[in-house]
């Protein structure tokens, strides 16, 4: 009946990888992902997994080897962060376009320059149009759960797309928290064997993977890819429900906290949701009508659900942990876009916080809620929380 362990986010990721027992992991160490790879390497060294671990020369080679491995029919994983993700960028697109269900924990860290090893979401946001499914985790428990969920979602024949499971660098990756782990056998039975229809090791039916595809077919193939990621909207709830039965925890695409009675709502992702929740509790006690909407599934973006929740609110603040230079940050853009067609819609205020690992303090969140209540923000500008 499972067990409860004290794990960091990185160790939780490695633990779920051990239970998945992928056929191949090709990875390159990078702070703050390194603990995932080191922990998993020890599992390999101790014979706890059947995995062929490929210690590649770079993240570019990591994702390249993953594409080869997954196309050969092996259950394949990797993990990365920041500049590593940026280096694999080219092949990140290829993995999705080749419809390979690779699962990749991403430990979010600021992109250079200047070089910085701490958390923000600039790395994963640069991949939001790559065709990968993107899930954000608030804490080590969610890291563990989401990786299992991601594997099953990615491998579903109606989806067949890779998934990034994001966690906040250091804040989550290096913070120890209690994590409930399922029995190995429960995970094994639930994920089942990976049996792809077409592989490079089927010599009876030799296939050509990655042909030249010009203006006469490329567009149709991209259209199919759009349908595939849209299918995730249908498959995600089924997979989440299955996993919930095993873990007794819920995994809605978006998570509502104190929303029903709230006039003012903060929308955010990952560990910032924890801080926001704490402030929501405090302010609610004081009789203020505030709530939190946490986005778990960022790609595909569950806009319809979000609209239904936000459309009747008095005001909405979106807290982004990355900037989009020259425009509004990614999550704020998504929320505004989602609400555009509504006749009555709340003003949406955009906030950027935590770049390069700057703490998001409860006082920052309080400042946002208070300003929302007073109507002291401007929808045309971006506010920066905690910047000097």
């Amino acid at each position: 009946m499972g067990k409860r362990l004290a794990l960091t986010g990185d160790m939780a990721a490695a633990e779920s990888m051990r239970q998945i027992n992928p056929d191949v992991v090709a990875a390159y160490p990078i702070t703050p992902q390194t603990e995932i790879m080191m922990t998993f390497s020890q599992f390999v060294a101790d014979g706890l997994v059947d995995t062929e671990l490929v210690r590649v020369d770079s993240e570019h080679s990591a994702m390249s080897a993953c594409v080869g491995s997954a196309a050969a029919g092996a259950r394949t994983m990797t993990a990365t962060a920041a500049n590593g993700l940026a280096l694999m960028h080219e092949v990140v697109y290829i993995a999705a376009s080749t419809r390979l269900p690779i699962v990749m924990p991403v430990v979010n860290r600021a992109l250079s320059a200047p070089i910085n090893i701490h958390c923000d979401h600039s790395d994963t946001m640069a991949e939001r149009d790559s065709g990968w499914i993107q899930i954000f985790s608030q804490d080590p428990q969610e890291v563990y759960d989401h990786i299992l969920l991601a594997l099953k979602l990615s491998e579903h024949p109606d989806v067949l797309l890779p998934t990034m499971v994001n966690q906040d660098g250091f804040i989550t990756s290096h913070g120890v928290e209690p994590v409930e782990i399922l029995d190995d056998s429960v995970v094994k039975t639930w994920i089942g064997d990976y049996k792809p229809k077409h592989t490079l090791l089927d010599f009876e039916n030799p296939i050509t993977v990655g042909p030249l595809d010009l203006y006469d077919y490329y567009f149709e193939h991209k259209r199919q890819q759009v349908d595939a990621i849209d299918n995730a909207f249908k498959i995600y709830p089924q997979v989440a429900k299955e996993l919930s039965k095993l873990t007794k925890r819920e995994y809605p695409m978006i998570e509502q906290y104190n929303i029903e009675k709230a006039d003012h709502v903060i929308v955010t992702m990952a560990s910032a949701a924890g801080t926001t929740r704490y402030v929501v509790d405090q302010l609610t006690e004081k009789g203020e009508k505030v709530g939190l909407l946490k986005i778990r599934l960022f790609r595909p973006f569950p806009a319809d659900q979000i609209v239904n929740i936000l459309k009747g609110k008095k005001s909405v603040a979106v807290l982004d942990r990355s900037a989009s230079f020259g425009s509004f940050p990614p999550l704020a853009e998504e929320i505004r876009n989602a609400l555009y067609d509504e006749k009555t819609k709340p003003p949406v205020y955009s906030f950027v916080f935590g770049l390069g690992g700057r703490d998001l303090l409860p006082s920052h969140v309080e400042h946002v809620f208070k300003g929302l209540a007073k109507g002291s923000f401007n929808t045309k500008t971006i506010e920066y929380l905690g910047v000097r």
Partner: protein
Amino acid sequence: MAFILKELLDKPEKLTSGHRLCPGCGAPILAKWIMMATDFPLVVANATGCLEVSTTIYPYTAWNTPWIHNAFENAAATIAGVESAYKSLSRQGKIKKKVKFIAFGGDGGTYDIGIQALSGALERGHDMVYICYDNEGYMNTGAQRSGATPKGASTTTEPAGKVSYGKKMRHKDLTAIAAAHHIPYAAQAALSNWQDLMKKAKKAIEVDGPAFLNILSPCVRFWRIPDDQTIEISKLAVETNFWPLFEIDNGKWILNYKPRERKPIMDWIKVQGRYKHLLQEKNKPVIEEIQKEIDEYFHWLEKRCSD
């Protein structure tokens, strides 16, 4: 053991006709031959380049064996991934067959942009052979300069002009670089010496561990040569010592062929349009320099092979 042409022709082709490479292109000739040198089932990875784009224009494919193209610089990492999948699945008893793995890349994808992935794959010891079809430039995109372009050749990014004789630098010795990874087998071959090429291909494919083959692959289009001269030009490359045939077999350097009488490099230069500016009087010193470098390299190679 010699290969018998008649027997080879009875083998099923893994690269079939109907592809769209230029008449006289060296790449499909060597790819087809190499895959005939073994009876093992083969999975092929192909770097972006002529061989890739011209053989797999969707919805067609000329490959009658499992094949994957990923990107330009990562054929070695891609085939390493395929081989790792195979290794894992075999170990778990999920696949029984003995399979071998080949990556094909042009010189751009191998000498230049793909050298890191190649180096990593060779060092990690995957059971694979990486084959560079070296046509001495980015020929797929119109003859841009590469690290394999020889000194004095005119390319579209380092062209001959009023104050330039084309490429200033020598091409790098990639075969020696590959051998420096202490892999079981590395060799250099040419289409003109096909028995030698086939023997090397068989050895490279069937050896346990990583192997590397560097094969000169004339480009009729951008070397500016007639399309029936591919083999003749290859022969000149060997007879002038421009492209010596050698192998490094478990660390032992072996010279496979020494011309009875080394032909002057001018014989190789004068028949190719990409060198035609070198025939001007003012570029005579360049040819002399090229000759000197070739002779010095061959001397070094002979010494290396007599150890």
